[in-house]
């Protein structure tokens, strides 16, 4: 589904990713961990096509297609979803209206008929119930006045409605209390399927206790320095990142 080869990228004029390789097959859940500044969010931005991040070397294939020349909306329409670390407020635009415009943009692209307000509302209500989201959030403007936890849950709701093929969740778990964390984890688990892949970017192994990843990777200074299973995440929790960074650097 996703293949990243020798990726080098600059953010803000500085090299951040320095030769990253990663392969995610359909149906797999990969966790990407690493200390601040290791390049996790930059990778998410490269994959979603954000301005300000420049790929200098390497390639990214999505379903065998070269991803890098595609615009952000083309990538979204091709099934890539980014759960934002800091979801953006759009004053005056109703949350459900926004999501309906979004879903219909994707449907149009896929040659499906657009949903009318009623059909859409039915889907939205069902997903909101599944994620135990308060329906009052659906009518409010996008993320405006939402608490941190509400914003993150709203990202998961959007993901549930848009049903992407590759979901990249950028620290969706940070700043959540245990209940909200469980909602996010349930949302991910609910969407797991053979043809949908996840890249979970996280600081903490907490989320991974609820969503069992197929692989855990540790990113340090723009490269993957370790890969393993859940036990790697547990080890990180005990020993901290300095253990890895030290290991990678070759001195204790």
């Amino acid at each position, binding site marked *: 589904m996703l293949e990243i080869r020798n990726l080098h990228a600059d953010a803000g004029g500085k090299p951040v990713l320095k030769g990253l390789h990663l392969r995610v097959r359909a149906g797999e859940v990969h966790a990407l961990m690493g200390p601040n500044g290791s390049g996790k969010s930059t990778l998410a931005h490269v994959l979603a096509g954000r301005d300000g991040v420049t790929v200098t070397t390497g390639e990214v294939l999505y379903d065998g297609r070269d991803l890098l020349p595609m615009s952000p*909306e083309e990538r979204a329409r091709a099934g890539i979803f980014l759960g*934002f670390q800091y979801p953006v407020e759009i004053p005056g635009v109703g949350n459900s209206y926004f999501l309906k415009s979004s879903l219909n943009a994707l449907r149009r692209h896929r040659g499906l008929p657009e949903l009318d307000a009623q059909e859409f509302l039915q889907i939205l209500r069902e997903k909101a119930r599944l994620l135990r989201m308060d329906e009052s959030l659906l009518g409010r403007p996008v993320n405006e006045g939402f608490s941190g936890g509400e914003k993150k849950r709203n990202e998961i709701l959007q993901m549930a409605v848009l049903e992407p093929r590759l979901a990249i969740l950028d620290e969706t778990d940070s700043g959540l209390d245990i209940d909200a964390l469980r909602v996010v984890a349930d949302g991910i688990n609910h969407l797991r399927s053979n043809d949908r892949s996840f890249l979970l970017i996280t600081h903490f192994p907490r989320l991974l206790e609820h969503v069992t990843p197929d692989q855990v990777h540790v990113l340090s200074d723009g490269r993957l320095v370790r890969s393993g299973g859940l036990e790697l995440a547990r080890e990180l929790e005990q020993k901290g990142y300095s253990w890895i960074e030290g290991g990678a650097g070759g001195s204790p």
Partner: protein
Amino acid sequence: MSDTDRRALEDLTRRDYPYGFETPVEEDRIPPGLDEDVLRRLSAKKGEPGWLLQWRLEAYRRWRTMPEPRWARVSYPPIDYQALSYYAAPRMNPRPRSLDEVDPEILRTYDRLGVPLAERGILSGVAVDAVFDSVSVATTFKEQLRRRGILFCSFSEAVREYPDLVRRWLGTVVPPGDNFFAALNSAVFSDGSFCYVPRGVRCPMELSTYFRINARDTGQFERTLIVAEEGASVSYLEGCTAPRRDENQLHAAVVELVALEEATIKYSTVQNWYPGDREGRGGIFNFVTKRGLCRGARSRIIWTQVETGSAITWKYPGCILQGEGSSGEFYSVAVTNHRQQADTGTKMIHLGRDTRSTIVSKGISAGRGQNTYRGLVLVAPGAANARSYAQCDSLLLGDECGAHTFPHLDVRNPTARVEHEASTSRIGPDQLFYCRQRGLSNEDAVQLIVNGFCRRVFRELPMEFAVEAQKLLSVSLEGSVG
């Protein structure tokens, strides 16, 4: 370049103003120039009574002594008032009794503009007075309204049919000497709409006037007067378009509203005069005086405007809150793209006790547009317990445009409470990226964000027009974001 190429190019550059076509009709016009003799000819053409000619002449003499205002934050070359023609009307049956007698070319024009002159079809719940250059060419649903005692007709017809009403109210809210452009209008106004809703009657349908400038080298000077008697209510909407031309054309209108005790008048404007091209060539100079008088206790006047057109917009629809407990509201979206300039806002004059005013202004600047909010809230000594709330927000698209806010608060009663909030923001790259990551195109994202910004105002428009206004906004801002 081949003809086909040229046509394709023309289509492309014209696309952003779809109403820029011209109607080939033969017009009867008074040659350019302005003096008392022109006013006499104009008045004679319209078969006006002597008092109205006198009124015009007095206004004209007043106008000649007045300097053109220069305080607005707009710049334009001097207007040669002697180079304009003050009357142009399609040569036709001067008083058509039915649509069958209206020039088919003109009917086609309104059809192309999407204005329903047939009393059926999609917008059949809207009565329309269609003003073409200096005259009203048709008014629909007159008879149905008449049966409820509602008078809705062109201003000229009102002068003929209801002279007492016109004479009683004309100039009571905007006196002829009010300002330079109002004085000019009072001297030369040619047509417009008149509406009278009797005591206790709620008008069952939306009333509207559609203003179309067609003739070259003319100005349009219409006058609208709406009177709602005790307990009456009416919702009125005006729309405006003009052909695409390289010369500027002048539009100087006056609108007067009178609301008696417990009456409500809702006046909505979707102004889409030709804005000029990208380089600022052509476009309408729109200098308009609009004012409502809340004369009776607990009366209410609501102004809603969506100003997307015109090269220059200069207008401050206001309310004189005279009746106790009366309220005035002003909701505005003003867009300036390319080289457009707008200086617009409101005046809320609190005279009576317990009066309320609400101001919500949304200015959007793009290209090299300059957008100014200018507002006055005056609380007179007698306006005990007055309340006023104003919110003025500006949105900038791009970095060559400007937004300016000049709120004037003049509070002379210690029990008044006056609030003013203002903000300036940009459409951020974060917002755009968020929308695009969800599959929306850049243009759709801008439209969505701008519509969200304007939502508080669009909510005040009648349903059908709210949809129109959103579309209009997207056309006006086409190509404004990279």
